[in-house]
């Protein structure tokens, strides 16, 4: 019986050893689509990670530790000749925290007027021409709003400290410190059109057949680019920042080659041109080719920058950074200057999938009173290596001269 089973098993094994089923080639495209989606999904989550971190930090800053009930502070008010109730809201700044209260005996939830235990410091701001008018210490309580009345000024001053401000202050680990907070967080959008005839150009010096093309007249390459996306930023103290985001970058290329071949070339397929020789004038060939294409990348930029304040509301912003770019979509046709034909860049797979890039920009920023920062700056960016695949004979590097337009919003931390 066992032998018979072995026979049947062997027979079945032999029968199916070369068994195959028909499967349409179109199924490959379904697999490819699934693979692309999978990669896209992973990519998006990695890109979103820094944004999530900044958002989490901001939410933590705003919402956590609401249950802290008390804190003390010194309030600085600038002396002005104008009616004080007009300027108080603008001029009050929280200067420092004096100490945590030793007990909560004075806690009084029912009253909006906080019990004043000592004196309020009415001090000058940074204007040295203004003298202090009065100094007091005060114990205040959260989550109540605080309304203080200065007897010295004849009950003219009502000071309201928003709760949000108090919460931010109250989460400082060391209440007695005089140091300003180190970090703040920003979130912003970036729109960067690239302009000009050389907005994108092919780097002819990197072409392997450089000598050949140095003699070509009337060939040109025009282009435009567009770079947009969102970013998150951590400011370190007042001037320095690190920015990370996710941008979409589009290069639109228009090539026009119009020339006459006066020499023959020796080529090895896939290896480029290996030598040149003169042609008889009767054999000259005039070639005119033009093509246009659009190449889109998704990039993750990491930038380090500096903001130098000229005054409180505006200054100079400069930044430099690197990015990793992933080819998102390529379509259209580009002139292949080696083989003198139009290439479909979508199908020949000559565009490299992953690239690294460099960008430098410097311009003017304006900071509004509602924590918006608007920046306009000339920008230069380039891919650090050829955009074409490694074994492709023609090297192409994209340059982008453009204008960055950024709009940022300070989400949390030290907003000064």
């Amino acid at each position, binding site marked *: *019986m066992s032998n*018979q*089973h072995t*026979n*049947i*098993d062997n*027979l*079945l*094994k032999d*029968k*199916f050893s070369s*068994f*195959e*089923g*028909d*499967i349409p080639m179109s*199924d*490959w495209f*379904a*697999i*490819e689509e*699934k*693979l692309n989606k*999978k990669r896209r999904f992973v990519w998006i989550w990695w890109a979103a990670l820094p944004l999530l971190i900044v958002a989490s930090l901001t939410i933590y800053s705003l919402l956590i530790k609401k249950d802290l009930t008390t804190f003390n502070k010194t309030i600085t008010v600038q002396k002005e000749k104008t009616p004080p109730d007009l300027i108080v809201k603008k001029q009050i700044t929280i200067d420092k925290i004096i100490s945590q209260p030793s007990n909560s005996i004075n806690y009084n939830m029912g009253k909006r007027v906080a019990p004043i235990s000592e004196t309020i410091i009415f001090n000058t701001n940074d204007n040295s021409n203004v003298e202090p008018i009065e100094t007091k210490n005060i114990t205040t309580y959260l989550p109540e709003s605080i309304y203080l009345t200065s007897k010295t000024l004849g009950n003219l001053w009502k000071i309201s400290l928003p709760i949000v401000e108090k919460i931010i202050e109250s989460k400082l680990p060391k209440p007695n410190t005089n140091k300003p907070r180190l970090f703040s967080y920003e979130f912003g959008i970036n729109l960067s059109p690239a302009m000009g005839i050389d907005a994108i150009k092919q780097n002819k010096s990197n072409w392997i057949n450089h000598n050949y093309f140095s003699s070509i007249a009337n060939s040109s390459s025009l282009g435009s680019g567009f770079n947009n996306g969102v970013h998150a930023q951590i400011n370190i103290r007042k001037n320095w920042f690190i920015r990370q985001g996710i941008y979409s970058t589009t290069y639109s290329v228009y090539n026009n080659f119009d020339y006459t071949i006066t020499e023959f070339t020796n080529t090895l397929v896939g290896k480029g041109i290996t030598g040149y020789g003169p042609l008889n004038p009767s054999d000259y060939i005039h070639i005119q080719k033009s093509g246009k294409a659009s190449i889109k990348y998704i990039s993750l930029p990491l930038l380090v920058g500096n903001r130098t304040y000229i005054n409180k509301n505006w200054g100079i912003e400069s930044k430099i950074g690197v990015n990793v770019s992933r080819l998102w979509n390529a379509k259209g046709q580009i002139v292949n200057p080696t083989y003198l034909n139009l290439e479909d860049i979508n199908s020949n*797979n000559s565009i490299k999938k992953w690239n690294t890039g460099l960008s430098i920009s410097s311009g003017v920023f304006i900071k509004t009173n509602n924590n918006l920062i608007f920046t306009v700056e000339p920008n230069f960016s380039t891919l650090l290596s050829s955009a074409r695949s490694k074994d492709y004979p023609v090297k192409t590097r994209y340059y982008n001269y453009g204008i960055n337009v950024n709009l940022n919003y300070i989400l949390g931390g030290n907003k000064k």
Partner: protein
Amino acid sequence: MDNNRLDEIIKGCKNNDRNCQKLLFELFSKKMMGVCLRYCSNYETSRDMVQDGFIKVYTKISNFKGESSIETWMTRVFINTCLSHINKQENKNIYFDINDPKVQYTNENSLVNEELVENSIKNLPVTAVLEYINQLPEKYKIVLNMYSIDGYSHQQIAETLDIQLGSSKSRLSRARQLLIELIKEKEN
């Protein structure tokens, strides 16, 4: 295809090279479709399994160390894909029963015309044999496929399907018996 070329394709797949992935698909898709047809019966389901299986292969190919041939490794991946699908889809508890008492003993009468059955398997076209196999109840068909055609041991089957060793043996016995009866009935 020579081994060097195949190694290059595998290396390319490990580097996520789309061209190499396509080449791997072109090389093995029909063979893997054959595997899926044996386990899933239905043509459309088998196509889905081929797609899912190749996604798994591309995702996990970095785990392939070359200890077996790529075809053997891929076949295991596709079998697991089919089994996982069958388990989810049918929810028939095919993996979790205990020994089936009805199939503890082989019907000796069924062995009488063994030559006839063997000749039938030899002479019938593979699609006809597949049709017979596909008529078997799923739990028998799976064990028959795994043991007789794909070369799994009973221990491996038991571990893969999470059943007892005895169940694997009894299901195989029952599968053979049913297959023989089916062939005899039809061919007579």
